[in-house]
């Protein structure tokens, strides 16, 4: 549970970062267009899986997680 939450937290913040290849072009978009959301400007860089550590704050029946990435690119 805790490690899953940590993955969710980091993944939510950094889902668009550098480890994943760009998605294929939007099939509904004009042919000369680069699909939206491919800027790669999300976050200052992704945290390798090996370094992710579970940590959570519980409020009532909810576990809360937050990330903040500061970067220069």
């Amino acid at each position: 549970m805790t490690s899953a939450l940590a993955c969710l937290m980091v993944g939510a913040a950094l889902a668009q970062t550098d480890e994943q290849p760009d998605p294929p072009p939007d099939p509904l978009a004009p042919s000369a267009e680069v699909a939206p959301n491919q800027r790669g400007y999300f976050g200052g860089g992704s945290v390798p899986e090996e370094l992710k550590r579970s940590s959570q704050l519980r409020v009532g029946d909810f576990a809360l997680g937050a990330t903040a990435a500061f970067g220069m690119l």
Partner: protein
Amino acid sequence: MFLSFSPAVRAQSTYARHSIGFGAGASMGTALKDSGDDFFDWRVGADGRIDLSRSSGIDAAVGYSRDVEDDEDVDSEDRDGDTPIHNIDASLGYSASGERLGFGVGGSVSRLDIEGDSFDDRDRTSYGLNGRLRYKWSDALSFSAGPAYLRSTFDEDVADDGDGRDAERYSFRVGAGYRVSRTISTSVGIGYSILNFDDPDRDNDDSAVGSAGLTWSPGLGTTLDLRASRSLEISVEDGEDARNRTTGAATLAHRLKLGYRSALSSSLGLSATRFSDLDRTDADLVAGLTYGYRLTEHAFFTASYRYSQRFSDEDNADYYRNLIAVGVTLAY
């Protein structure tokens, strides 16, 4: 060069049964020395699951995102700066599974809205329905089959050449998944798609479709992923009846832990996509390297480099991009 800040929050229920989660995130940046436009993208979403029994449940999700389309990425005379894109997605599904048989149905709706009247030809609403029957032959082998339906309606249905864009697609697929060994898993699916346009003057289309994949994880942090697929897509291109797309892709990833505090991850992806109706072929290369260092329990330093390049026989579709990023990520 940009200074960027990307906060995100997530709340996940801890109920023994059922589940609900909320998430929100943003990414904002300031351009230094006129190197581009400032950006501010954000998204919110919620997802949940209601357990009806030990083996059946209802899943639902809804999300909204606000992105921008970089004016440098689109060849258009109507652009003056980045253009905001609004995207809403919602889905609802029911699934039930027994010891061997499983069953699922689902529906989804999405809305894409690009600001500005000149993009009404791309603004659209799509609805999807799908069903799936699954049979587990053994722990290593399972089969599935099911139909799918997709309908897209555009704000500006009639293209400049008089052709209507609104269309619906019917598909049926059968597939199998097989775990060859502890390190290799494979999947294959074949089917058929029929594409019908509302415009009676426009030719409909149909095609065999399919997909296949193989994942090899030999250990030591290495994963090789191979994919191939063929699909029939609804197209917004003027004068296009449909768009048959065939894609092959290979991704090699490696993760290396360098002691307790640092790690290095790398990936190399190659893919080729053929749009047969457009007589266009793209080849994409993406290579990335990320170094992470744990500063404290909750703070990480990261440095990454990504290179991406597209080769295409379509005019003005080639590009390459270098991205170097350094930063600190806080996670709680």
